[in-house]
């Protein structure tokens, strides 16, 4: 019961799976050549990063890693549709979205090595666009009302910023999803909600998540608009996001559903033995990168050699970034356990830090390794 964009009358698309495209719609985007190139670069970089992460996980250097194969257009497209001062809170596997916003690769990787994140800029005002995010959540769905609160706060402070929040087809089943969309509708907040419907939540297929035909249909229940987009078409994703962002800036939230398919496993812990290969293949034929390559070739923006060179550079950058990240992560000290538990910590935190240090110096780090 896998779903395809073609089955829906109203699913937005610019480039078809076979690479043919709606020229008028493509031109209307008014994207410069370098911008079109950048979208490609981000998708390729995301895929290269995924591959690198998987390798490192198999080598035992990463404990855990999540896959994004086939989802790159949806991730890159939403990020491209945002303005520089806008905010983006995604879930874990949306590497492409961060790459498109300029986030250093090692920074993305460090989250997987340490579980926490760091920012360069001290204050929000100084933040680069890729820094305009909250740390990743792990309890799926919890980011939804949080993003609503974030944009509510930015609006109260007089900033003209929009927030985009991503959630999965699984996460959209949570109560937080409901609360977040409902608050945004009532409070007229500048938030774009994106359901990345990749049709699986670990081993649970989308028809076990919802009996609705689309997630976009949920928007009317919150008093705003929803739209269904071919999540493997980077241009359609870009256009829909841009439109939604504009609308949100005027106080009308919007819901996008990116219909796509998770071709990879859920994560490095997932045996991925619960679904039909035929579905995966059908979606393999709708690969977002290949489809976009056809467009770029036809438009004369790149030739096949360019693709090759870009892929190689992306692999290289992923490899180098991983090395840097591993170096940085290697410097963890046991007492980081206590870092920033509080902004204004009680004294017993210091006492416990001392106690741990003493134990480590007495017994050696090895005694702590299970």
């Amino acid at each position: 019961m896998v779903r395809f964009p073609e089955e829906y009358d109203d699913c937005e698309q610019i480039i078809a799976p076979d690479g043919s495209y709606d020229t008028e719609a493509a031109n209307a985007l008014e994207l410069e050549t370098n911008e079109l190139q950048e979208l490609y670069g981000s998708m390729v970089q995301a895929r290269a990063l995924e591959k690198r992460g998987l390798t490192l996980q198999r080598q035992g250097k990463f404990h855990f890693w999540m896959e994004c194969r086939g989802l790159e257009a949806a991730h890159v497209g939403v990020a491209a549709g945002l303005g520089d001062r806008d905010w983006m809170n995604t879930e874990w596997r949306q590497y492409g979205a961060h790459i498109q916003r300029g986030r250093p690769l090692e920074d993305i990787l460090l989250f997987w090595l340490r579980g926490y994140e760091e920012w360069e800029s001290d204050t929000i005002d100084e933040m680069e666009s890729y820094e305009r995010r909250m740390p990743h959540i792990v309890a799926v769905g919890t980011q939804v009302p949080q993003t609503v609160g974030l944009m509510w706060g930015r609006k109260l402070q007089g900033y003209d910023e929009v927030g985009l929040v991503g959630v999965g087809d699984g996460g959209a089943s949570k109560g937080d999803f409901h609360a977040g969309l409902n608050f945004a509708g009532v409070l007229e907040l500048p938030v774009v909600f994106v359901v990345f419907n990749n049709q699986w939540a670990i081993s649970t297929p989308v028809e076990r998540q919802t009996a609705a035909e689309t997630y976009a249909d949920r928007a009317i229940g919150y008093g705003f608009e929803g739209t269904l987009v071919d999540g493997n078409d980077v241009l359609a994703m870009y256009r829909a996001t841009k439109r939604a962002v504009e609308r949100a800036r005027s106080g009308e939230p919007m819901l996008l559903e990116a219909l796509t398919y998770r071709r990879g496993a859920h994560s490095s812990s997932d045996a991925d033995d619960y679904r039909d290969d035929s579905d995966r293949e059908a979606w393999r034929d709708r690969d977002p990168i290949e489809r976009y390559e056809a467009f770029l070739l036809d438009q004369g923006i790149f030739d096949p050699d360019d693709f090759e060179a870009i892929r190689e550079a992306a692999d290289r950058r992923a490899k180098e970034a991983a090395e840097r990240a591993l170096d940085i992560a290697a410097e963890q000290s046991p007492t980081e356990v206590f870092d920033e538990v509080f902004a204004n910590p009680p004294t017993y935190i210091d006492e416990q830090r001392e106690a741990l240090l003493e134990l480590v110096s007495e017994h050696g780090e090895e005694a702590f390794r299970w």
Partner: protein
Amino acid sequence: MAAESLTLVEAVAEAIHDEMALDESVILLGEDVGRSGGVFRATEGVYDAFGPERVIDTPLSETGIAGAAIGLAASGIRPIAEIQFSGFTYAGLEQLYTRAARLNARSRGQFSCQMVLRAPFGGGVRAPDLHGESMEAIFVHHPGFKVVVPSTPHDAKGLLTASIRDPDPVIFLEPKKIYRAFREEVPEESYAIPIGEAAVRREGSDVSIFTWGSMTRPTLSAAEAVAEDGIDAEVVDLRTLSPMDRETIVESFKKTGRAVVVHEAPRTGGLAGEITALLQEEALFYQKAPIERVTGWDAVYPLYDLEDFQLPNAARIEDAIKAVLDE
């Protein structure tokens, strides 16, 4: 300093009002906090003073309230979120545990979670289910929260002021039983009472009684009652439950060697256990008798008139004091 005579709930409203006047990044959100001034009128007048932009009646969703407050805090706003009764916080716990308590750690200090979650708590108003919950222990156990419980109008104002200014998420539990039980002189000016400092409400040398919130008053009554039998009880109102004022607790016990802990929450797994463990770790060799716990029973909170039998009262506290003195 000019002073006025306030009830605890009026002191809460005043602290909110003053901080909102002082700092325009402070806002108030919750169910019915606005035009109606809250079901206990704890936010009375705040809407009129600051208007609908800064005093917001939200949809009925504690998940939404907690989640939005976290996002607001991350954005640079200092939200005061009201949960109508602490028993309705449960729906917000995922947001609070998985994010509010961790935002600072997981962003290595980039986004602190400066928010206050206020809720009327504890029993004593003869209300339906979930209107009498005492759930301080589940917050104290999770690293990252601060937990504050005032027991007087003066403290309510000063502690709430400090809580709003504190950079960490503060769970501010207001003992609803004594919202209007008595008045006290409270300075008109704004002032902060430091989080983490207990108050010795009565000095004594024979036994230390540790308590907080609405239990402070029956504890003081019991202390006065046993004074007639020549027992000199010290009453320590913890005021902050996370972080606890370990020093004051331990010092008092070293002096008396005997202790009673009084709380409304059920006995098993309640904070009396934590305090006992602390005392016997830090001061076992001063201890002269088992530490008594006077707590709510391990019962699903009984309703209406029946709650009288659930809540510790002066008679039970007196018995406990005498028991520890008897050993």
